């Protein structure tokens, strides 16, 4: 097989993805933009009127913004983690889904921190974090962790993009249909990569090293995020298992989001050939493992609180099982047991059912994080008394919901736009896979003739 011709074939096969803008995709993009515009209005409203427009008040000072922050940041760490694992162990699965994982990582790592900014009362003084830094504060640790992770992920993502950009550059040279700015962009970003054996080897070595670093960084960043809560003395937060719990729940949600993204991209771009049933099957098995782990951690966390029944823990459990009864049931029973029930049986691990299990897990995880943040703040050590009625309980306002939706919409929009620039399937990955298969076939043939 000639590699160059195969490259060209792949470009031809996948480039309709880049050029195609069907009616459906137009409607999709326009609706995303309109959600973002509404969110922008909500943001301006919050900026001019202050946090009064949110449902947050003196007792519950952190609401769904912080829940979204945890969700997106956990998602990105898990994306980094999964991408690192896929690359490091050179799993054959990586070749078609690595790009989806990497884009998820970087986008959620950009969107996540925006939510923490929405929580901050004085955005105009944000630079005080650097002007008067206090390294003792877990918030400072988190800022360092997120910034380091962001840079690491960008470098990593770019490195994995280089071979594909080179292919696109070579393919678009003769193609008159590709606009000039795109050609220039491809050429600039490919930084002279010619896919010579030395270049190939060197790049792969670097990517391998980066993948290990990214796994380590993700673990540190997860832990720091969990410590924002677990280093306080509050009853629902002060828990020693929070850091590993956040890692497990983050990976769980990360895998689920990747499965959902895989499903949508496969369906929309008709990539059944590359994103196969086996991918969903394998994804289902990994999701099953993590749902069991996550269920185990959730059980340990609440079981020890319930069994030792310290007064303030009991107060928290009472809040959870009275005001938040159905949310608790959905998040921690339905959201864990349902995916397990679906994924446990081999026969049920079909493309659709695995995706449904993934959707349930994502919703469950989000709600689980809500139940970690809000009920704890509603059940402080000193009972909430002598305060205005509207300060006692939290319910998010439309501004908060709108800005949360904006986060999701921005995630989808950027995802779509990136896929307009580079194909969802890493072409170099496919070629590497085919090369390896060919090599193996050759070896097998040799062995057969020798025998």
């Amino acid at each position, binding site marked *: 097989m000639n590699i160059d011709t195969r490259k060209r074939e792949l470009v031809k096969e996948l480039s309709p993805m880049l050029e195609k803008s069907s009616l459906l995709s137009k409607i999709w993009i326009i609706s995303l933009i309109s959600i973002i515009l509404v969110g922008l209005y909500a943001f301006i409203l919050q900026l001019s009127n202050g*946090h*009064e427009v949110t449902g947050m008040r003196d007792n519950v*000072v952190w609401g769904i913004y912080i829940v979204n922050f945890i969700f997106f940041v956990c998602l990105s760490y898990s994306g980094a983690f999964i991408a690192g694992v896929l690359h490091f162990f050179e799993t054959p699965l990586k070749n078609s889904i690595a790009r989806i994982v990497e884009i998820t990582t970087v986008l959620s790592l950009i969107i996540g921190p925006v939510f923490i900014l929405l929580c901050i009362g004085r955005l105009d003084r*944000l630079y005080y974090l650097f002007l*008067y830094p206090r390294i003792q504060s877990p918030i400072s640790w988190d800022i360092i962790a997120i910034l380091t992770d962001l840079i690491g992920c960008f470098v990593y993502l770019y490195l994995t993009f280089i071979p594909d950009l080179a292919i696109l550059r070579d393919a678009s040279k003769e193609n008159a249909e590709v606009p000039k700015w795109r050609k220039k962009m491809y050429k600039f970003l490919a930084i002279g990569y010619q896919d010579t054996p030395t270049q190939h080897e060197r790049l792969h070595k670097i990517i391998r090293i980066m993948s290990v670093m990214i796994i380590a960084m993700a673990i540190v960043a997860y832990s720091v995020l969990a410590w924002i809560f677990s280093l306080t*003395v509050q009853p629902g937060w002060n828990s020693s298992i929070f850091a590993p719990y956040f890692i497990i729940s983050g990976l769980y949600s990360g895998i689920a989001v990747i499965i959902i993204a895989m499903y949508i991209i496969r369906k929309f771009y008709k990539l059944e050939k590359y994103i196969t049933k086996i991918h969903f099957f394998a994804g289902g098995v990994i999701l099953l493992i993590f749902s069991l782990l996550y269920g185990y951690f959730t059980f340990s966390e609440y079981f020890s609180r319930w069994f030792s029944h310290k007064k303030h823990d009991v107060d928290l459990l009472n809040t959870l099982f009275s005001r938040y009864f159905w949310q608790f049931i959905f998040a921690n029973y339905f959201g864990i047991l349902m995916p397990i029930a679906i994924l446990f049986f081999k026969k049920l691990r079909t493309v659709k059912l695995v995706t449904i299990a993934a959707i349930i897990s994502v919703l469950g995880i989000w709600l689980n994080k809500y139940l970690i943040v809000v009920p704890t703040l509603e059940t*402080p050590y000193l009972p909430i*008394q002598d305060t205005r009625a509207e300060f006692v309980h939290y319910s998010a306002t439309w501004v908060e919901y709108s800005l949360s939706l904006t986060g999701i919409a921005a995630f989808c929009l950027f995802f779509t736009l990136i896929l307009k620039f580079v194909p969802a399937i890493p072409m170099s990955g496919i070629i590497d896979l085919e090369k390896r298969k060919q090599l193996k076939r050759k070896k097998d043939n040799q062995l057969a003739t020798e025998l």
Partner: protein
Amino acid sequence: MKKNKTEEGGTDRRKFLKLGLMTSLTAIAGASIVTNLAAQEEEKEPSGEVIRLLTPEGKIVEVNASNINKYPEALITPAESRIGIPDRKFVMVIDLAKCKNARKCVEECQKAHKLDDHQEFIKIQLIQNHEEGEPYWFPKPCFHCDEPPCVIVCPTGATFKRDDGIVLVDNTRCIGCKFCVTSCPYSARQFNWGHKEKFDDKSQPYSPETGVPAAEGTVMKCDFCPDLLRQGELPHCAKACPMGVIYFGDKNEDIVTNGEETVRFSQLINDRGGYRHLEHLGTKPNVYYLPAVNRQFPLERGFNIDEEIVERYKDVPYVQELKKQGKI
């Protein structure tokens, strides 16, 4: 703290009375619980005007008008407010046996800190130790902990612990991340959620020691009124309490006063079984409580207040029971 913005100007009877009140308070205290900071006067050109003052020893002396510092006007800047009053270790003792939820401390504090009716630096909780115990009124200011969780987590150093034990918030430094609010186990902190007209009132320059004017998007809390402490006065809540519930003083001098009686801090704590709330959290508060034994008022007396305030306790099981019995 020495930045005394003294102005040339006439005197009036009120200022004379104020100074007299200060000195008499010190005289009652027997020991100088709060050093008369007015001693640090700067040499000024005599303006010719002379005022007569009463000294702690009971002598009447004549002082030049320009030598009297106008402390309320003395501005302590954010940078100066980080240092604290030298050689002091402020401590509060709250006698739960005397509290009847008269709410004078709350109101006076709100007035002094220009808070709304609905904002309380000092809250009155209705606490029940266990099922058998009768609930009691529990005034709860900021505890000014020696191991303050809020100070540890602040990413910009906007909230800080001073040498004199006071924990303050500098709202010109605060970025409003609210991490301190979530880490305080006593729910002592408030956040300014929206803009209010009073924030624009710049007639009184901002000082962390007064917390006035507050600013949108920043945190505020009980500050032990260091502006009054500098003048040798008790905090607003202690001064306002008609029952003498709140004792305030200096741990270094081992003395506290509620304005009526002055007692040894260590003796008060040891004789009356003083304790700190939620001691097991290890925050080392500087507010001590004397248990609600031999109470002076029945609990129900605390409900002779606005309907709106009574509503604030509606979630307490004891109150629900009282309502059922028709007692409130």
